[in-house]
Structure formats: structure tokens, C-alpha cells
């Protein structure tokens, strides 16, 4: 008995040792660059500002498609920014696998590295809620590019986002849709086990109540289901004038496809997460009549977006979605703040410069932060017509 315990303790101690050495060896050089603080004069004299930006992204697991789009958008922006030569950004990308626990680990790893100036990500709101308070306490700027849930920028002074919250996107789309169709009755379907779609649903419900619309039924679905027919049959029988769907495009496209097959012909209104060229790819003609509010309109004739599409397709062989576009803009916003901060080493100076971002001209339009670090920008409402996204006409 005694021996057993002793042996046990020895082994436990060995583990701890192995653990510590394993961690020790994996630590990266913390003293990169080694420059003294560059002052504002340096910027005007044309010296390149070096900065390391940490990225936490959902790269393996069920939602890896979103993380992939985001990192591709970031990498494209990084390449362009570095080519211009004013700032030189290095991205340190960590995977979060969509789990809060791993996102926190990745976050701690980045925060503990003193050479990292600021963080972009993580991808999901559920991950962001776990990482952001930690970043705020550590005094490192963190910006979400795909986190649209309520209450994110309110976490703290160092917490920002450039993804348009559903609270802006959905009401804009709903108002325009109701105005044109004269809808009075709406049905809602949403994913209730996902923070993103749940937050979108709450906005929908609130907006519908404010607009005096009658909600015929509220239906939910869960991740991993591919059969939405039961919910849709129920919706069909309540004869709504509009279907409000708070869904990510992957599920959303399947929902709209099954709905059309079932004979639901009324328009669908969705949020920013429903906006993706993939919807047309997955649902085909069934996607016609989808109305979404979004900062990003992929088929816009705006030369900036046309150019972005071209470059992205050259680089990755597919069309960008708004996750890629938002990430692309995010890095440009960071680069812009870097230029104004004049240094890539001072986390606080960077935060202050970032907070002052006003009327930044990105591919998504004019962008500013409000006092809490949330997005101020115009929403474009688009719809799918004849298999293409077009700007919504009243």
C-alpha cells in the first residue's frame, strides 16, 4: 500500500516534469524584432512597421469551412499589405477546433507571447465569449470577424468586432422585405443549439413584434440534422407571407431547398450568416427569393469588390463569402491602425489607434467603431434572383 502510493507519486511527478519540459521546448522566441520603440517620425520617414498578429480560427472539425474562409481572407490581405510595404504583418495562426477550451488555450498561448501585438478571432461567438474577457484583462486587443452575437464588444475596452451584428443586418432585411411584399404573417425557423443562429432568432422575433407582424409558428432545428421536412410542413400549413430563417448558409441552403420542394414559395429572409454564394451552389434554383441583410454583396459592381473577387479566385480557386471578406477587411483595419499607432510593439497604443478608426474605406464600405467597439456601417440588402445575388429593389 505504502509502496503503491510512493510509486504513484513518483510517476505523477515524472508526468509533471515531462509536461513542463514539453511546454518549455515548444515556446517560441519571445524577443523577435528587438527594435526599440519606433516613433511617429519613423513612420513618415517610410520605415516599415513590423507587427505580429495572432489569429485564432476554427480550422478542424464541423465548422472548419468558416475558419478556412477567414484565414484565406486574412492571408490574402496580408500578402497585399506586405507588398505595399508600409507595414509588414506576420500572422500566427492557431486552431481552436470550435471548442471554447482549445480557443482559450490558443488565446493564452498568443497572449503570453509578448511579440504578438493583437489578436483576430476566434471564429464562433461561443469561443469568443471564453477568450475575449481574458484578452481584455491582459490588455491585448482582440477583434472578432465573424462573431455576431449580442454583447460581444461590451465585454471590455480591448474587445472589438468588424462583423456586422445580426441586430443591424436582420431588421434592415426584414423591413425591406415586408415593405415590398406587404407581409403580415411570418414563420420563423432557427437553429437553437448554436449561439449565432439563436442570437439571430432573438433579433428576428423582437423585430417582428416591433413591426406588428403576426408570428405563425416558431420552429427549431439542431446541428447535424439533414431532414427539415417536419418543421417545414408545419410552417407550410400556417401559410405565412414570409419565412424568417436564422441559419448559417450550410443548413440554410438545405432548408430553403427542401422548402421549395415542398411547395413553400414565399420569400425567405435571413441574416448575415445566410449570405454566401454557396447557397446558390447547394440549393440551385430553390435559392431564388432569399433576402439577406449583409455588409458584403459579392456580385456588386463596385470595382473594389470585383477586384477582391478576382484576386481571391486566383488565389484559392473559389468565390469568397462574407466571412472571407470580413476577415480581409479586418486585417486592413488593423494595418490602418498600425500606421496611425506608428509602432507594432505597443499593445495599448495599438488599441487606442484602433478605437479611433473612423470612416475606414474597406471592401465592405465605410467602417467605423462606436464607443464600445461595435460596428457602425451601412447594411446592404440583397436577394437571390434567377440564381444570382442582386441588390434588393423595392
Amino acid at each position: 500500500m505504502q509502496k503503491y502510493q510512493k510509486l504513484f507519486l513518483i510517476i505523477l511527478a515524472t508526468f509533471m516534469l515531462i509536461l513542463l519540459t514539453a511546454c518549455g521546448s515548444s515556446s517560441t522566441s519571445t524577443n523577435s524584432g528587438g527594435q526599440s520603440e519606433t516613433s511617429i517620425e519613423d513612420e513618415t520617414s517610410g520605415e516599415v512597421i513590423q507587427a505580429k498578429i495572432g489569429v485564432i480560427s476554427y480550422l478542424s472539425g464541423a465548422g472548419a469551412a468558416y475558419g478556412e474562409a477567414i484565414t484565406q481572407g486574412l492571408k490574402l490581405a496580408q500578402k497585399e499589405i506586405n507588398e505595399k510595404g508600409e507595414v509588414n504583418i506576420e500572422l500566427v495562426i492557431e486552431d481552436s477546433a470550435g471548442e471554447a477550451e482549445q480557443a482559450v488555450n490558443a488565446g493564452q498561448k498568443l497572449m503570453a507571447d509578448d511579440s504578438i501585438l493583437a489578436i483576430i478571432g476566434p471564429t464562433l461567438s461561443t469561443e469568443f465569449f471564453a477568450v475575449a474577457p481574458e484578452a481584455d484583462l491582459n490588455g491585448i486587443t482582440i477583434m472578432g470577424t465573424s462573431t455576431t452575437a449580442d454583447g460581444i464588444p461590451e465585454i471590455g475596452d480591448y474587445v472589438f468586432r468588424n462583423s456586422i451584428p445580426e441586430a443591424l443586418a436582420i431588421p434592415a432585411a426584414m423591413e425591406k422585405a415586408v415593405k415590398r411584399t406587404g407581409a403580415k404573417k411570418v414563420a420563423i425557423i432557427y437553429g437553437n443549439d448554436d449561439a449565432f443562429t439563436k442570437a439571430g432568432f432573438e433579433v428576428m422575433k423582437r423585430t417582428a413584434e416591433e413591426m406588428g407582424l403576426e408570428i405563425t409558428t416558431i420552429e427549431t432545428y439542431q446541428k447535424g440534422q439533414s431532414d427539415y421536412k417536419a418543421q417545414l410542413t408545419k410552417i407550410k400549413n400556417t401559410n405565412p407571407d414570409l419565412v424568417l430563417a436564422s441559419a448559417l448558409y450550410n443548413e440554410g441552403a438545405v432548408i430553403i431547398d427542401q422548402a421549395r420542394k415542398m411547395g413553400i414559395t414565399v420569400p425567405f429572409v435571413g441574416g448575415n450568416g445566410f449570405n454566401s454564394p454557396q447557397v446558390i451552389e447547394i440549393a440551385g434554383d430553390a435559392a431564388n427569393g432569399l433576402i439577406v441583410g449583409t455588409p458584403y454583396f459579392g456580385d456588386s459592381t463596385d470595382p473594389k469588390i470585383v477586384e477582391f473577387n478576382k484576386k481571391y479566385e486566383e488565389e484559392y480557386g473559389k468565390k469568397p463569402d462574407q466571412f472571407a471578406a470580413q476577415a480581409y477587411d479586418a486585417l486592413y483595419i488593423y494595418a490602418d491602425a498600425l500606421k496611425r499607432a506608428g509602432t507594432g510593439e505597443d499593445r495599448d497604443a495599438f488599441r487606442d489607434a484602433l478605437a479611433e478608426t473612423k470612416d475606414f474605406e474597406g471592401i465592405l464600405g465605410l467602417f467605423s467603431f462606436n464607443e464600445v467597439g461595435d460596428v457602425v456601417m451601412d447594411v446592404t440588402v440583397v436577394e437571390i434572383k434567377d440564381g444570382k445575388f442582386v441588390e434588393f429593389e423595392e
Partner: protein
Amino acid sequence: MLGELLNPYYLQVLCFILINIMLALSIYVPLSSGQLSLGSAGFMGIGAYTSALLTIHYELPLYVTILVGALLAGVIGIIVGIPSLRLTGVYLAIATLGFGEVIRVLFVNWESLTKGSVGLTGIPQLGRELLKFAKSIGIEPSALGLKNNQFVYLSLVIVLLIIVLFILWFVIRQQNSRIGRAYSSIQMDEKAAESMGINITYYKVLAFAQGAFIAGLAGALFAHTIGYISPSDFSYHRAVEILIFTVFGGSEVIIGSVFGATILTLLPEVLRFVSDYRYIFYGIMLVILMAVRPQGILDLYLFYRLKGKRIKRGTS
């Protein structure tokens, strides 16, 4: 060197290792009485939500809420454990897995209490509460040569380590007591154990409830370590992950759980550089492990060989 080691990243990973050790033990204990329970994720969720809600709404001290969370999980463990007595082997495994899923769906749908899938934010972090406490009694981290942040995580690790060591001590003591011998006799042959006058019902439910209690405790501590919980933290994936900790390390010996949880928590961190492919590796590794060492990395035989003794397999 010390400053380097007190990097919050390492300490954070260490916290998760310690919590995962507890979770692995929550499977080990029922398993030592022959019951394969996959409900740990569910019990963990019960502990986490109970403690988090109590601190958020009633501002009770953490040591009270964590204990209440663990106790509630334990009580529910008894309630679930009694009818589960009729089930053995894979039936019990699937029923408990199902229990975990039902709990998760409940968290998703009970929105007035749990805020659904959005999850609970702003859960007091144990380390920071300890910092507040330390400051209130006049201990400044700087006096110990630590930054605030280092103090937060160091104190958290110490608290978790003490709890883990206590649980380990308790389980090891128990194994060598009357209860432990009853467990292992039930594991080996339930009918024989019964005929020898062992109260099967009592011991099986006890083992099941102990597992639930440990899982609940780990869940409550998890909530106060990470500061944010949502139902997806307690899904099927978690249940399987916990099972793999125990089985990978070796389900015959308690040290196996410790070993499995440690290695498998570290692995994704160490494999970050191949992050794209790590789960593929993970899958292959499990298959190979089962083919080569189905009893897990560590087993009794290895143990006794280490000690220079040879005994027959099958006694525990």
C-alpha cells in the same frame, strides 16, 4: 526559468489537464465496479451549470456553489444509478450516453434558466476570486514576485492540484478498503460477489454516484476556470473524449486515468503545428493502440514489473 514556466498559457493547459484527470477518474470509479458509464459529460454539465447559476444569481461564495454543484450531480447520479442497475455492459454505456444527450438538450431548451445555446457569460473565475481574497487579507502578488496574472493562474493550478490529489488519495484509499474490494469483486463476477454476501445494489449505486460526484465537481471547476459555458461544452464529443482518457491510459489502474488525461490533453497542444491533420492522427492512434495494447498504455502487469515483482494477471 521560473518566470518562463509561470507563463499563463502553460498554467492554463495545466488547469485543463487537472480537470480532465478528474473527469477521467469519474469514469474510472464506476468502471472499477464493472459499470461503464458514459454520462460524465452530463454530470459535468449539471455541476457546471448549477455552480455557475448560483454564483451569477445569488453571489454565493465559490466553495459553496462548487460543492453544491458536485453534490447535485452526485444526487442525480444516485437517481440515475438505481434504475441503471438492471443494465450492464454496452446497454449501460448507451443509456448513460443517452442521459448525457438528454441533459444537453435540456440545457439548450431551458432558456429562461440557461440562456440556451448562447451560454452563460461572466462566471466568476476561481483564480481571480482568489486574487481578490488574497488582496483583501493583505497579500499582494508582487510581494511574492508574481504578476497579477501569474498569481491568478498559479493559485488556480494549486487549488485544482490539491483537489485532484485529494480525490486520488481518496480513491486509492478506498480501493484498498472494504468498499474497494467489494467493487472489484463485483467487477469480476457479480453473481459470485452477491453469493458472498456483498450488497450489490448498494455498492454499484455508490460507485455510480461517486463517479457522478467527481464529474460534477470537475464540471463546476471547469465553469470557474474558463468563465463561460454553453451546452456544446457537454456534448457527445466530451463524453467520448473522457472515455478515451481512461481507456487510453489504462482502465485497470488508477494511474492510467491520470496518464491518459495528461497525455491526451497535451497532445492537441503539442500537435498544434499539424493542426489540420491532428484529428486524423488521433483516430489512427486509437486504432493502433487498441490493436497493440487494448488494456491501455498502463496496466497492472507493467506496474508490478516496474516494482520488480511478478504476479498473475487478473487480480486488482
